[in-house]
């Protein structure tokens, strides 16, 4: 099959799936089958594309000119390929999980849920494959809007309030800050294409470059740099599968993906490293890592703790990219994949606990590991990956980030990594310890066992994925290498 056709398919399959899901409104079994088939089809297409991209092909597809000289166009490069691969694979697992979760909790409006999910994945593919900033912006906004009904799924006062924060921050930053930055770039440079080595060198003055960096970093609300991170904990009112795939993988990764993409393909690492006013990004990201970890440490609500852990892990990616040496940029790219597997496992576990035991607070989890060994086993693996302990994927990305930091002699970054590793351990390990080694509280009448099978299957897959990525990191490594131009 021609590679362009594959690209076109990757961008249409989720939408077709969404339509078919909507048409299966009255038949839940058919609806869920369609979701699974769509997810598997999308992943197969993306996997086929991956082999081509690893072989050095760069498929390109141009649809139409939105503005003169700025088309709606797609080009697959290694970073986007990795993002799409991770998101589309986890969509399959997450769909299995969703079926167990949504049925187990008897959620309403399930069709709308699956439709919005498919549209969100479509937008994610668009973000991953965009060939220029304008196309990227289109899908970035589509992702925000398609996930809004998912955040407000429960429709109660709390959900609507969370949705307001979600939409408020994401739209304000994207329309209010990112869009002007894009227009300014178009005006100064004359093109918005993503190019290896960036497009700004020689065209944008240092002063403007600094301004643009600030606008882009704070315009990408989805990357959750402090202080514009509040939408992420607010989004936790959503059903857990949404928090798992969208607010641990697709949406937040779209954010840091945009950050890495901008640094590598729009600014250019070379251009930024000569900029005198770009260093702040390293410090802000470092501060975000530490502050978010401390908040996570103090949160008793499990999903909130995970959300703040995500905020902190996202800034790992930003900090890694901001170190501005190729090897740390590789670490940033790998961390997108590594964190995705680990964090989705943790969210799956949180949802599993909620479904089986109706517990949401960390302090309620004493001794739960004996009743839910699979769930808490997976949780432990996810937690180890967050801390960066081998044999989990988190170790690999942290290794590269550290190498980069040493290479660039970025002392601050090294200190942040060490401190945050301690903090990560401090807020994850007690949960694991309590679950397995503490006695369940007296009078806990909840006589529950493991969560539904679909949920257990899903979290087992992602937990194993976290370990498999440690032993077989070839694909992400190859993609990351080829992104920074060290050869595929």
């Amino acid at each position, binding site marked *: 099959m021609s590679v362009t056709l594959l690209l076109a398919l990757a961008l249409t399959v989720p939408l077709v799936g969404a339509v078919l899901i909507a048409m299966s409104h009255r038949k839940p079994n058919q609806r869920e089958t369609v979701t699974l088939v769509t997810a598997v089809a999308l992943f197969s297409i993306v996997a086929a594309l991956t082999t081509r991209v690893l072989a050095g092909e760069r498929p390109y597809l141009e649809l139409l000119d939105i503005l003169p000289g700025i088309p709606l166009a797609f080009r697959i490069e290694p970073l986007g390929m990795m993002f799409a691969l991770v998101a589309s694979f986890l969509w399959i697992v997450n769909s299995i999980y969703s079926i167990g979760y949504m049925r187990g909790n008897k959620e309403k409006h399930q069709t709308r849920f699956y439709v919005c999910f498919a549209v969100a994945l479509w937008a994610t593919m668009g973000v991953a494959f965009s060939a220029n900033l304008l196309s990227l912006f289109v899908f970035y906004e589509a992702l925000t809007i398609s996930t809004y009904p998912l955040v407000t799924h429960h429709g109660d006062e709390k959900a609507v309030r969370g949705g307001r924060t979600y939409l408020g921050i994401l*739209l304000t930053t994207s329309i209010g800050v990112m*869009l002007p930055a894009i227009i300014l770039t178009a005006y100064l440079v004359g093109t918005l294409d993503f190019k290896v080595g960036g497009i700004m060198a020689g065209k944008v003055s240092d002063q403007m470059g600094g301004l643009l960096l600030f606008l882009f970093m704070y315009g990408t609300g989805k990357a959750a740099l402090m202080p514009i991170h509040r939408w992420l904990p607010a989004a936790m009112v959503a059903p857990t599968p949404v928090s798992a795939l969208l607010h641990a993988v697709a949406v937040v990764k779209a954010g840091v993906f945009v950050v890495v993409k901008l640094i590598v393909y729009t600014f250019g690492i070379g251009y930024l490293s000569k900029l005198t006013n770009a260093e702040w990004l390293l410090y802000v990201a470092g501060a975000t890592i530490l502050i978010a970890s401390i908040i996570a440490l103090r949160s008793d609500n499990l999903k909130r703790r995970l959300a703040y852990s995500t905020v902190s892990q996202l800034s790992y990616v930003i900090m890694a990219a901001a170190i501005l040496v190729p090897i740390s940029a590789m670490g940033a790219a790998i961390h997108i994949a590594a964190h995705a597997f680990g964090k989705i496992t943790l969210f799956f576990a949180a949802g599993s606990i909620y479904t089986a035991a109706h517990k949401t607070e960390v302090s309620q989890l004493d001794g739960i590991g004996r009743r839910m060994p699979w769930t808490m086993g997976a949780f432990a693996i996810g937690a180890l990956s967050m801390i960066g302990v081998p044999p989990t994927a988190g170790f690999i990305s942290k290794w590269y980030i550290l190498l980069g930091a040493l290479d660039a002699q970025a002392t601050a970054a090294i200190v942040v990594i060490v401190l945050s590793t301690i903090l990560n351990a401090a807020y994850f390990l007690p949960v694991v310890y309590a679950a397995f080694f503490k006695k369940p509280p007296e009078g806990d009448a909840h006589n529950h066992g493991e969560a539904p099978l679909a949920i257990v299957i899903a979290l087992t897959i992602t937990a194993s994925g976290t370990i498999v990525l440690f032993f077989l990191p070839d694909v992400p490594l190859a993609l990351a290498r080829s992104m920074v131009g060290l050869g595929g």
Partner: protein
Amino acid sequence: MIEAHLPALQIVLPLVAAPLCVVLRDARAAWALTLLISWAALAIAIALLVKVLATGPITYELGNWLAPWGIEFRIDGVNAFILVIVSAIGAIVLPYAYASVKAEIDEERIYLFYCMYLLTLTGLLGIVITGDAFNIFVFLEISSLSTYVLVSLGRDRRAMTAAYQYLIMGTIGATFILIGIGLLYMMTGTLNLADLAKRVPPIAESRTVLAAFGFITVGTSLKLALFPLHQWLPNAYAYAPSTVSAFLAGTATKVSLYILIRFIFTVFGASFAFDVLPLDIVLPVLAVLAMFVASTVAIFQQDIKRMLAYSSIAQIGYMILGISFASVTGVAAGLLHIFNHALMKGGLFLALGCVMLRLGSVQIEDMRGLGQRMPVTMAAFVVGALSLIGIPLTAGFISKWYLVLAALEKGQWYFAVLIVLSSLLAVIYMWRVIEAVYFQPVPNTDAARNAREAPLSMLVPLWILIGANVYFGVETSGSLGVARRAAAMLLGAGS
């Protein structure tokens, strides 16, 4: 043969059809005739635009009296574009009007509605097509007087006071314009716009011409509802019949804006208005105030039609701001927004017309939970809202892009910031409605519980306009190309 007379037919057809409606008296026949005429008007406008784009400006001497003595119709890239906007909104709104008007106006007065509607259309098209200053005033009066009647036909009794308010303010505006034109005639002895454009600049510094400029600018600003001369607009839009609100939102203020553009750029010249006179400060300041004050007021409205009316005042601010940059990109952005705003506001008002039909109210508390009852209508409302906010792939996004670009080109980055900030206010006032419609429980009233989807005759026009928002957000070479050419022509001819 007939092709040569297209400019005359553009005006004559609706003008002749208007009294025919009175003769017909039957509501259905009057509607059918009006429908036919408004579609013909659109066809003619498109034919004229195509011809102008291909061969350059067209002039047409009425009754073969040569300009500058006779009345001349002169169609160039600018007014051909506006003609298409006005007649297209008219043509789309009319199929919709049938059910909506039937529900909102007494049966025995419906033929009068269509008669007045045709007269309004005549007036608006006439203002745009004519090349004669006094003729502009005449057509302005035709359209204004018939619009007052249209507004007063609203079911709400407050429509009467709204129409009265509009009448007073509109008359002051028209009088100012007339005084300005009179002063120009006194100084130059001509009323032909092209002729004025030649004769005014040499005597531009004289006090009489300055006064004429002042009168015309203030008069048109009143008619186009430039902040702070907008007081008549919210009530007029809120209490007029739904069809009228949609039609006027897309046409009336736009045509007044056209008069302003024509006088500033063609007759007086951009350098006179913006360099000699301080319009380069006055207009942007008023535009920015409109953007912020009107948007903020919109946030607090309970009546959604009224909210959209305030939003219109803010959007007029964008158009004025674009024009006040006096650069090709800026003027093109202003013209483009005239077009795009007609699409979005027309669509949104049509959606509210559907709500009015089924619910009998457009108060936000009555609209709670309507997303389930009228999914097709409310989905259209959401798309219209996204366009108004300026989300990519909608027409509103393209407008905003060019406005910000124009501000950056001028080096006035603070306007870029202000444009962006004010569009965030649109997020707030539109999202209030969307939250109420989708997330709040249905109120316990008969009307709310029994509300069902609007008829197809209303949904199709609604979705044509809403679909156009998406189409012109994706395929921009048409609208943008025309706007850019028109802007280049205005600036080339003006300086």
